[in-house]
């Protein structure tokens, strides 16, 4: 089976700044991968490149063999680092929106999740709190049967209960043919959920390994290793 994501010699420059330089990365299907690095290390740039929101300066990126575009968008479910669902919509209108554009969107699943969260369909997104909006967008993203889920800082500013909800959704949504990439700098919170981690520093891949390999070889958690590697 072909790789879900494949970056070859991928570079991105902003002016004279190298946001990513020569990244080679392959993500196999059925993995939950942590993309770990401090702020400004290139995590978001990599995710934006995968989504075609940026164009590579050099090299290329392929999602199931496709360059980022219309076709890859139908296979990737993306949670941006900031809430970006249209605020003027009601939750029901947002469900219409996702049903219209994504054939793999499972409206029943989404409605069920929203009910669990106590979010009503006739609620205007504009009138919701920041945390609720985040949950609504995550619900939309996780209710798709996509091949690749790209979650950019999904647990950044949420409370512990919401964090557990998010991680639980990721686990129960697990599909051996799909992969999940979670970018974060809060490793302790997600470590158990990951099977693979990618350390990224100053736009370069520092390490790609499984969580248990790290624990077995180094006798310490990924979180501890991360703190050691990225010590200020």
């Amino acid at each position, binding site marked *: 089976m072909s790789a879900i994501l494949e970056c070859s010699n991928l570079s991105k420059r902003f002016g004279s700044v190298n946001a990513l330089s020569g990244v080679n990365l392959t993500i196999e299907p059925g993995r939950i991968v942590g993309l770990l690095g401090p702020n400004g290390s290139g995590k978001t740039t990599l995710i934006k490149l995968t989504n075609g929101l940026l164009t590579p300066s050099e090299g290329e990126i392929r999602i199931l063999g496709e360059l980022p575009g219309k076709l890859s968008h139908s296979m990737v479910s993306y949670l941006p680092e900031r809430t970006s669902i249209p605020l003027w919509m009601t939750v029901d209108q947002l469900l219409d929106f996702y049903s219209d554009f994504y054939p793999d969107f499972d409206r029943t699943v989404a409605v069920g999740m929203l009910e669990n969260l106590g979010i009503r369909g006739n609620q205007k997104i504009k009138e919701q709190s920041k945390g609720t909006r985040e949950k609504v967008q995550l619900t939309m993203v996780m209710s798709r049967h996509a091949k690749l889920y790209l979650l950019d800082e999904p647990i950044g500013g949420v409370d512990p209960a919401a964090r557990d909800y998010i991680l639980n959704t990721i686990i129960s949504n697990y599909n051996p043919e799909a992969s999940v990439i979670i970018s974060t700098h809060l490793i302790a919170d997600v470590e158990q959920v990951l099977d693979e981690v990618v350390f990224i520093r100053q736009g370069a891949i520092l390490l790609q390994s499984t969580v*248990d390999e790290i*624990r077995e070889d180094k006798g310490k958690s990924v979180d501890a290793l991360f703190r050691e590697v990225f010590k200020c």
Partner: protein
Amino acid sequence: MTWSFQNDSPIYAQLVNGLTLRIVSGIYLAGEKLPSVRDLAAEAGVNPNTMQRALTELERIGLMFSQRTAGRFVTEDRTMIEQAKKGLAEEQVNRFLTAMTGLGYDITDIISLLKEKETKRAKEVQ
């Protein structure tokens, strides 16, 4: 019984231990059908692949077996479970002994300490 994980050893190994403990303590009975990998993973809050690895290991040891269509079960072999229990007990004893030797007690001291504790406990019960 809730799950918590140590930082110094692989998660799958801790899952093997935790599941063994659940079997010997009777939370999962001999011959009982186990929940799906995904449900077990969700309950423990761990990656489904890691849970799968732990279950495969338990099958290899013989504490679990899977049937192609019906799912995965706890072994019906009670001597096997007893053996596992003994194994866990031994591990605890070893840990205890290491700690006590560290404090400077030798084995006879330890035995008399344990006896003392037992008579005290018997009196309290009366």
